[in-house]
C-alpha cells in the first residue's frame, strides 16, 4: 500500500509496525501529529502528558518494563525533558525506547532555533535523521532495534520540512503480536541511580558509544551515491534533498545515522573526492565533527547558520563560494517588499480578544486609528507572557505583552520583576494548557515567597495553537475518551490563593471590573478568563453587522484586532463569513454608538 504521508504520520506508522505499545507526548509544532496519528490506532496506549518531562518518564517506565515505547516533542520540548533524557541514557532500557525531536529551523512556530543534534552528542546516544517520509517510516523501526541492541534510548531527529512534508510511503510491514511474559525487571544496579550505581554506568555508556561508532561504519543507514569525483558532499536530513537538487552530478555521503559519525567511511569518502563540503541546516554539527578528524572540509563559511535552508539559498551560497557557475541573474521582481504584511492574528470570536483589549487600554498600549497625537503615552503595567496563541497579544493593535521566554516562564518572571522593586503592577498571562505544563510550580513559588502579582489564566478549554489537543483540564484523553478533569480554580485555591475569580471571556465589563480590582489589590490574585476557542467548538450564529447610520467611524472596534471587522476606505463593516456571532459580541459591547448588533435587529431599527 502506497500512501501520501507527512513525516510525522510516517513516524507513527513506522512505530506502530515496529510494535510500539506506549506513546507519550506534549503537543508542539512541528511534532504534534506523531502522537495524534499513533492515538488513532488500536492496541496501543497513548497519552498527552502534562509536559515533555513527564512524557519522557512515562516512556522510560514502559521501556524498563519490556514494552517498546515512543516519546515525541518539539525541539524546545527536549529542554524540558532533558533531565529524564540524560537519565535514560545512563540507565539504558529493557525494551526499545525512541525519542523523537522535531526541530523548527526558520522558527515557523517556536521561540528559538536550537539544533537538537547536539543532544545526541551530549547524552551519548545514537541519532537517526530521516530525509523523507519513507525513511521516517523505516528509520523508526531501525531505531527500536538499535535501542535494544545497544541498551540505549535512540534519538530520531526531524525538522519542519521532514515532519510537515508529505511524500509517498510504502507501508510494507505488519504489526507484530505482543511479546508475552515480559515484565518489570528488578535490577537496582541498572535502574536506581545512586552515585554508587551511576559510577558503574558511566564507563558502560562510553563502551556503548564505541560499539555504536563501529556499527555506524557499516550501517545501511549511511549511504554513498557516487557521481563526479570533483565534489563530494556530506549531508543529512532534508538538507540532503536540497543539496541533491542543487548539485545533481556531485558525489554524496548521506548520513542517515548522524551520531556517532562513521569515521572510516568519511575518511574513505573524502579521500576519493577533490573537494569536500558539508551541507547542513543550522549549526556546523557534522562539519565540526569531521574537522576534528583532521579532514579539510568547508560548510558554514558559505552555507548560512541561521534560518531554514532551501534549494535557492544553497544555490546562491554555492555560487558565491565558486562551487557553482553563476546563472544569468533573473530580473528581480520589484515592489513585493512594499506590500502590506499579513501576520497571524487572533481569530474572529477568540476568547483572548476581550482580555487583551482591556489589558491594552488599562496598560496604555494603543491609540485610535488616525489619532492626532502620534506618540503613545508611557505604558503602564508590566505584562509577562507565555507560549500559545495568546502570544499574539504582543502584536498591534494590543501590544499587551512585555516578555515571552518559554513554557511557564510568565509567572517566575513576574515575581522576579516585582522583587526587583519595579513600581508598576506586574501581571502574568498564561494559557490553561501552558499553566498545567509548567506554570503550577511557578505559582506555588509565588505563594511561598509572598508575591503580589496578578496571574491571568486564559482558559479556552484546549491546547489551541498546536491544533486543539486535549490536556489534563479538558477531561478528555488522547484517544478521545472521557477522563477525570483537573479543575483550575480548585487547584489554585488548593495551594493557598484566596483571591481567585472566574470571569466570562466574552463579557467586556466583567473583564474590566475584575482586572481593575486585582490591580488595586496588594494580594496575590488569580483571574481565570474562561471562554471556548471558536475554532475548536465550531459554534457559529447570526453574524453581527454595523449600522452605517449610527456608526461614526471612530474606529475603536478596530482596536480589538478582530479579522472580521474590516475597513473599506473609512467605511467599517463586519465580514459575515468570519464573524462568529452570538458566542462573542465583544465589538457589540464595545461600540460607543451602539451601532453593532445582529443583522435582524439592526435591520429592524433601520426600518423604524
Amino acid at each position, binding site marked *: 500500500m502506497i500512501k501520501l504521508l507527512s513525516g510525522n504520520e510516517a513516524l507513527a506508522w513506522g512505530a506502530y509496525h515496529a510494535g510500539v505499545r506506549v506513546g507519550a507526548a506534549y503537543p508542539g509544532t512541528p511534532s504534534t501529529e506523531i502522537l495524534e496519528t499513533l492515538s488513532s490506532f488500536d492496541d496501543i496506549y497513548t497519552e498527552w502528558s502534562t509536559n515533555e518531562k513527564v512524557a519522557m518518564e512515562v516512556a522510560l517506565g514502559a521501556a524498563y518494563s519490556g514494552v517498546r515505547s515512543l516519546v515525541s516533542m518539539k525541539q524546545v520540548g527536549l529542554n524540558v525533558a532533558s533531565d529524564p533524557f540524560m537519565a535514560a541514557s545512563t540507565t539504558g532500557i529493557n525494551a526499545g525506547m525512541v525519542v523523537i525531536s522535531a526541530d523548527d529551523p526558520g522558527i515557523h512556530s517556536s521561540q528559538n532555533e536550537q539544533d537538537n543534534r547536539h543532544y545526541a552528542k551530549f547524552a551519548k546516544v545514537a541519532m537517526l535523521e530521516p530525509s523523507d517520509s519513507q525513511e521516517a517510516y523505516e528509520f523508526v523501526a531501525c531505531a527500536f532495534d538499535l535501542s535494544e541492541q545497544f541498551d540505549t534510548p535512540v534519538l530520531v531527529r526531524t525538522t519542519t520540512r521532514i515532519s510537515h512534508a508529505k511524500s509517498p510511503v510504502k507501508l510494507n510491514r505488519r504489526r507484530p503480536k505482543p511479546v508475552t511474559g515480559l515484565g518489570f525487571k528488578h535490577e537496582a544496579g541498572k535502574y536506581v541511580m545512586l552515585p554508587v550505581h551511576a559510577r558503574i554506568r558511566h564507563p558502560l555508556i562510553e563502551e556503548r558509544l564505541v560499539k555504536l561508532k563501529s556499527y555506524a561504519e557499516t550501517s545501511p543507514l549511511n549511504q554513498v551515491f557516487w557521481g563526479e569525483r570533483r565534489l563530494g558532499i556530506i549531508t543529512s536530513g532534508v538538507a540532503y534533498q536540497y543539496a541533491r537538487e542543487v548539485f545533481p552530478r556531485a558525489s554524496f555521503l548521506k548520513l542517515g545515522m548522524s551520531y556517532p559519525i562513521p569515521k572510516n567511511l568519511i575518511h574513505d569518502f573524502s579521500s576519493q573526492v577533490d573537494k569536500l563540503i558539508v551541507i547542513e541546516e543550522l549549526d556546523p554539527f557534522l562539519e565540526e565533527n569531521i574537522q576534528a578528524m583532521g579532514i579539510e572540509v568547508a560548510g558554514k563559511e558559505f552555507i548560512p547558520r541561521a534560518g531554514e535552508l532551501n534549494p535557492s539559498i544553497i544555490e546562491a551560497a554555492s555560487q558565491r563560494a565558486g562551487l557553482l557557475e553563476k546563472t544569468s541573474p533573473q530580473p*528581480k521582481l520589484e*515592489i513585493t517588499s512594499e506590500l502590506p504584511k499579513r501576520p497571524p492574528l487572533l481569530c474572529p470570536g477568540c476568547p483572548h480578544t476581550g482580555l487583551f483589549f482591556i489589558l491594552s487600554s488599562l496598560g496604555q498600549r494603543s491609540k485610535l486609528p488616525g489619532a492626532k497625537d502620534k506618540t503613545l503615552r508611557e505604558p503602564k503595567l508590566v505584562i509577562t507572557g507565555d507560549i500559545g496563541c495568546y502570544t499574539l497579544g504582543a502584536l498591534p493593535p494590543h501590544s499587551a505583552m512585555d516578555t515571552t521566554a518559554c513554557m511557564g516562564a510568565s509567572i517566575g518572571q513576574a515575581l522576579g520583576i516585582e522583587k526587583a522593586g519595579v513600581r508598576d503592577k506586574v501581571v502574568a498571562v498564561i494559557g490553561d494548557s501552558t499553566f498545567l505544563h509548567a506554570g503550577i510550580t511557578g505559582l506555588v513559588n509565588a505563594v511561598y515567597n509572598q508575591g503580589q502579582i496578578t496571574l491571568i489564566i486564559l482558559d479556552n478549554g484546549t491546547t489551541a495553537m498546536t491544533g486543539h489537543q486535549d490536556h489534563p483540564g479538558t477531561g478528555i484523553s488522547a484517544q478521545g475518551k472521557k477522563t477525570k478533569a483537573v479543575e483550575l480554580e480548585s487547584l489554585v485555591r488548593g495551594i493557598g490563593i484566596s483571591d481567585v475569580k472566574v470571569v466570562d471571556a466574552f463579557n467586556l465589563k466583567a473583564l474590566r471590573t475584575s482586572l481593575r480590582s486585582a490591580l488595586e489589590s496588594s494580594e496575590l490574585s488569580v483571574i481565570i478568563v474562561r471562554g471556548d476557542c471558536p475554532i475548536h467548538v465550531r459554534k457559529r450564529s447570526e453574524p453581527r453587522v454595523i449600522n452605517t447610520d449610527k456608526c461614526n467611524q471612530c474606529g475603536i472596534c478596530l482596536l480589538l484586532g478582530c479579522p472580521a471587522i474590516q475597513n473599506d476606505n473609512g467605511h467599517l463593516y463586519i465580514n459575515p463569513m468570519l464573524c462568529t456571532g452570538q458566542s462573542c459580541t465583544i465589538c457589540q459591547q464595545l461600540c460607543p454608538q451602539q451601532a453593532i448588533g445582529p443583522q435582524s435587529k439592526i435591520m429592524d431599527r433601520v426600518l423604524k
Partner: protein
Amino acid sequence: MKKLDLLMTGVGGQGIILASNILGEAALAVGYDVKKTDTLGMAQRGGSFISHVRIARKVYSPLIKEGEADILLAFEKLEAARWSYFLKPGGIAIVNNLSQPPLSVNLGNERYPSDEEITKILKQGTDRIYFVNGSSCATKLGDIRTLNMFMLGCVSLFMPLKVSIWKDSTAQHLPPNIQKINTIAFGLGRKEIRSVHLRKGSPPPSRTVVD
C-alpha cells in the same frame, strides 16, 4: 516539461491544505512522485499561507525553487503579488478576485495595492494571468468553503489528470453529504478558465505534460 511545480497561496482558513492534499494524492494515484509541504505557523486563521506541491517522476526537495513554479494558484490577490517571485518566467498565474485586507490596512497603517499594481507585479514575470471569480461563485453556491474546489477546477485544466482521478481523490477527503456541491464548484472552476479564453478569443489551454 519534466516536472510540475505548483505554489498555492492565500490566507489561513481558505481550505488550501485540503486542496493541496487532494491535488497531491490525485497525482500520486496516476503514478507520479509527489512532495508537498505547507507553511503551518502560529494561529489557525488569518496569516499569509503557502503550500508547495511538486510533481515529477522523482522529486527531491519538498520546497520549490524561487522563480521555478510552473503555476501560481492564488486564493487572494495580495498573496498572489507577495509570492509571485516564485513563478517562472512565462508561468501560469490563476488569481481569485478577492481582496482581503490585512489588519495593518484596516487600521490605516498600510495601503492595499490596487488591481493595476497587482497586475503590474504579476506581469513582471508572465502574461499568462487568469483572474477568476472564485469567491463570488462559491458564495452564490451557498458555501464559501467550496472556494478550494473551484480553484482546483481552475488548475485542473492545466494538469495531465483526468476528471475521474480528481473525483476519486476528492471523495477520499470529503464527507458524502458535501460532495455534490463541491463537484459543482470544481466544474464551475473549469468553466471559468474556459470562458476567460473565450473572452480573449484564444483556444482553451493545453494540458501541461509531466514526463
